[in-house]
Every structure is written in C-alpha cells, then in structure tokens.
C-alpha cells in the first residue's frame, strides 16, 4: 500500500499544508495537539473536503481538486476508528459489528466475523449494548466494526487518547496483533511517543500543519528535536529485538539486539518472539571505561557518532553500538568532564528497571495467550 497526500486546507485559525508518502504497515501521524494530524486523517477519510490538493491510495485517487474528483466517504472503503468509539447506541455490539458488512460487496468481504471477534477478544460482549461497555471494550468493538467493513485502509484517530493507562495497556496488544496478523495498512494518529515507538513502522511528524519529518520509526525517534517539548523526555532509541531467554530466578527476560544483550523485566513472550523496545535518552548513562561495581545490568559498548546541544544544560549523544544507535542525554558539564567527542569509544549504561510496560512491548495479558 502506498498512501500519498499533497494537501492544503485552511481552517478558521490555521492551515494544514502537508505533503507526504508512506508505504508502511503502520504509519503514525505524530505531533502535538493542534498540529493538524486529525485534520489530515479526516481529509483521508473523506469527512472533510480539502481546499486544494490530492490524496491517493495505491494509485486510486480519493480526492483531486484539480481534476474535480471527490470520492464520498461511503465509497472510499476506508475504515475509521475514532477517539470516542462512536458506537451506535441503538444497536447491540453484534449489530454494530455487522453494520459495515451490509455495504460491502460480497466479493470484497475478506473480514470474517469469528476471526475478528477472536482477534479482539470481544466474544462475550456480542449481546450487550454499547452503554454497558467499559471504555476499553468500547474501543475494541469500534476497531472490530471498522475491520468488518473489510476496509482497504484503516485509520485510527488517537484511539487510546481518552483511556487511562490500564485501558491503554489492555488495547495496545490488540493493535499490535492487528498490525502483525492482518494485511490491512494502518494510519495511526497519536501524540504519544510511547504509542508511536511501540506500534509504528513509519512516522510522519507534523508541526503547525506542516510535515516536519517523515521516515522509518527508528530514524525519527532518535531525533529528539522533532518531539514536542512535553514528550521530549519520552524520546530515545527504538530497537527491534528478539526474546533470547527468560531468567526465571530473577524474573527477567534477556533480549538479543544488534547492540548486544539487553536485560528487561520479565515479558510474557515466548523465546524467539520479536519485541520492540524504546530506550529513553534520559535513562542512558555514558561511561568512558567499562564500569565495575555498578548496579546497572545493561552495558553496551559503542562509538559516538552524533552530538547535538539539547535544551538548557543538556547535550544529546548518539552512540553507535554495533550498528544500532542508542541516544543518551547528559549534561554539557559531564560531556566536558569526560572529554567526549565524535569518535570516542564509550559505554552506554541502562538500568533494567528503567524498562517498563510503556517502553517494552509487554505482550498480551496472560489470559489471552500469545
């Protein structure tokens, strides 16, 4: 799937002028609120008509103002999951799930009711009314409803933003399954570094209605300057790893990454399973000699390949550890004291306990099974 957009649209007090192309499994539109990401997704869904521009999916033009083409939303076959589930209150969960099927030509119906219900774990909810569901359940049903319309593209507009942390943790694994087990390309709007780092294959960073950067998640998450100020602390390196083994004695999981072995709190994943981790830049210490007598368990050796002044007294340092770049944020004072410069051989030190549910793919809850 290739989504390409070149759009300019004026709202009362700001304008969106975005141009990007993405072919990712899960493309995140990332930016602070007011950056135009929701406007952009509404333009793709056909909920808004752009002033000027063109959007196409796999060469199928959805809107092209120059050619006077505007495919109405009900003909786009683009599923949408809204922040506020928007379930139909007068129908049962099953009725909601079946709704889109009516309007899908039978030859294009690839989504199977049983499979989707299983995927999202909503079998026990089918007879309930939306008013009787919890926020997390509601959002899972909304995802199922969009899937069962057999869409060619699935849009998710901050589907977790209105949920608390526990509910978020409940739904994230289902979105991961969606990404890994179905073939539908997903465009995911979010302002959270944790969600984007965990879910996205590609990121389009939006700022004040314009595209600030676009590219693979690992490359974008490293650039702390792209992150909104309040989320900068969440930024850092994103590494794709595999479960090597579990340390039952100490309750840890050992992950194999390009940078070396990384120990994290125990994950509910089988050996060999892929796990994406995010190492926050603020959690990384830098040492010039291999430290001894230190409690931190993860010590990665590497070479400094980048150095950038951060905010205030900080400096951001990129350390290439055997091909994987880890970002550290330290003070300028420490940098000078250690004499760090490009090409220096250093060690990146990361505490195991700095990994939590938010920056390791924590896996599905045990009762669901993997």
């Amino acid at each position, binding site marked *: 799937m290739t989504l390409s957009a070149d759009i300019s649209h004026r709202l009362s007090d700001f304008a969106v002028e975005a141009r990007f192309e993405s072919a990712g499994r899960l493309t995140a539109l990332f930016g602070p609120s007011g950056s135009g990401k929701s406007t952009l997704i509404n333009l793709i869904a056909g909920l808004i008509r752009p002033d000027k521009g063109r959007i196409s999916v796999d060469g199928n033009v959805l809107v092209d103002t120059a050619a006077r083409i505007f495919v109405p*939303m009900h*003909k786009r076959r683009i599923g949408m999951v809204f922040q506020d589930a928007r379930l139909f209150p007068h129908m049962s969960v099953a009725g909601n799930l079946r709704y889109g099927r009516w309007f899908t030509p039978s030859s294009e119906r690839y989504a199977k009711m049983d499979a989707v219900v299983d995927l999202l774990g909503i079998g026990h909810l089918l007879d309930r*009314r939306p008013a009787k569901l919890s926020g997390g359940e509601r959002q899972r049903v909304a995802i199922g409803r969009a899937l069962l319309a057999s869409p060619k593209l699935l849009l998710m507009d901050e589907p977790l933003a209105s949920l608390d942390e526990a509910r978020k943790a409940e739904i994230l694994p289902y979105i991961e399954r969606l990404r890994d087990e179905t073939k539908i390309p997903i465009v995911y709007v979010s302002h959270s570094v944790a969600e984007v780092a965990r879910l996205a294959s590609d990121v389009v960073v939006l700022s004040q209605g314009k595209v600030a950067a676009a590219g693979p998640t690992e490359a974008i998450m490293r650039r702390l300057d792209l992150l909104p100020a309040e989320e900068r602390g969440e930024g850092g390196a994103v590494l794709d790893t595999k479960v090597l083994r579990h340390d039952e004695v100490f309750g840890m999981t050992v992950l194999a990454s390009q940078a070396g072995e990384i120990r994290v709190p125990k994950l509910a994943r089988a050996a060999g399973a892929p796990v994406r981790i995010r190492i926050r830049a603020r959690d990384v210490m830098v040492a010039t000699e291999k430290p001894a007598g230190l409690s931190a368990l993860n010590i990665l050796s590497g070479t400094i390949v980048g150095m950038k002044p951060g905010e205030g007294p900080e400096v951001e340092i990129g350390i290439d550890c055997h091909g994987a770049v880890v970002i550290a944020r330290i003070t300028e004072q420490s940098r000078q004291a250690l004499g760090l410069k490009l090409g220096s051989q250093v060690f990146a030190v990361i505490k195991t306990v700095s990994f939590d549910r938010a920056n390791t793919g924590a896996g599905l809850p045990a009762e669901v099974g993997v």
Partner: protein
Amino acid sequence: MNWLLDLTPDEWNAVRLSIKVATVAMIASLPPGILIALLLARGRFWGKTLLNGLVHLPLILPPVVTGYLLLLTFGRRGPAGAFLAEHFGIIFSFRWTGAALACGVMGFPLMVRAIWLSIEAVDRRIEAAAGTLGANPLWVFATITLPLILPGLIAGAILSFAKAMGEFGATITFVSNIPNETQTLPSAIYTFTQVPGGDEGALRLTLISIVISMAALIASEVLARRVGRRMDIE
C-alpha cells in the same frame, strides 16, 4: 355508568369521526413533518426564517383565521382546492378529509418542533461513523438518524393527535359542522351546548373526550419508555 355508554348513533359517529380524523391527520403530517424538521434542524438555505415562520403560523394565528385561509386556498374555488379536485379528485371542502387537513395543519407546528428538537440532539459524529462504514446518506438516515429520533417522533405524533382531537375553530370554519361528515367531538359538544336539554349529551361526550386523550397520552408514555429502554443512551 350506563348513561355514559348509551350514545345515540350521531354521538357514536362523532366519536368515530374524531378518531379517524385525528389518526389520518397525524399519519399524513408525519412525512412532511420529518422533512421540514430536517430542513430546519440541518438545512442552511435562504428563506429558512420564512419557512420557520410559516410552519409556526397556525400556532400564533387565531384558529378561525387559519380555517378561513384554508377555505380560501383549499375550498372548491380556491387555487389549490380547484387543482386537486380537477386532477386528483381530492375534495376537502365540507368533507371529513377537510377536517383532517385542518387538524393536520393546526397540529403541524407541534409535531415539527418535537421532531426538530430530537434531530438536533442526534450526535452527527455517529452519523459520520456510519458513513465511513459505507452507508450512503439515505441509509444513514434510515438506520441511524431515524431510530435515534424515534422518541421525538412518537412525542410529535402524539402531540399532533391530541391537538387534532381538540381542534375546533379551524375545522368548523373550514368544513362547517355537518353530522356524520365533519362533526367531530368538539363540534358535537358545541352543538349540544347550543340546544336546550343538551347538557347530558355534552357531558357524555366531554367524558369520552377525556378518556381518549388520557389513553393516547398513556400509550405514548409506554411507547416512549419502551423505546428509551431499548436505546439506553449513555
């Protein structure tokens, strides 16, 4: 109790006619009522204020004036009346159909207001969600909007029915007071009060009138509650 049910044939006819007129008036005003309520709630067009005024006119004007205007327009020689009689064979003047028209017009603003309010209460974002699932605007209306405004629809219909049961001024001006044809309950009660010794008949019909109105009200309550429970909107 016996004297209550011991109606003369003319009185029975007045009861039957009233129910028939009110039912026809209610059912016939539903489709245009929904349409106008939709236009007023969602439309953005020139002359919306004018349409709003026109719809509410029967509420403000003296009923006699409304009845007289109907006579001028839908009477045998009126422009609309002549046209309908000639092309469709529909005659309103001095027929029970005319009474239904008068009642429908008088109840129309009440019906439109009730439906209008319920349309404005519908979350349009839910309709948009149905659109993204592939439903065209007509389907969205039929499967989402209509079920969601059902309570308002019922309320509007009952208001229109109740108004029709009690309508007097416009009806008597437009189609007069002909027993078995245009003599509805209020007209019959009025006739009783105009003749000596008519008190008993007037009281009988008054009580029947109360019973029918209460029954309609209770039926609407029960219906609305059942619909409301089915929907269970947060």
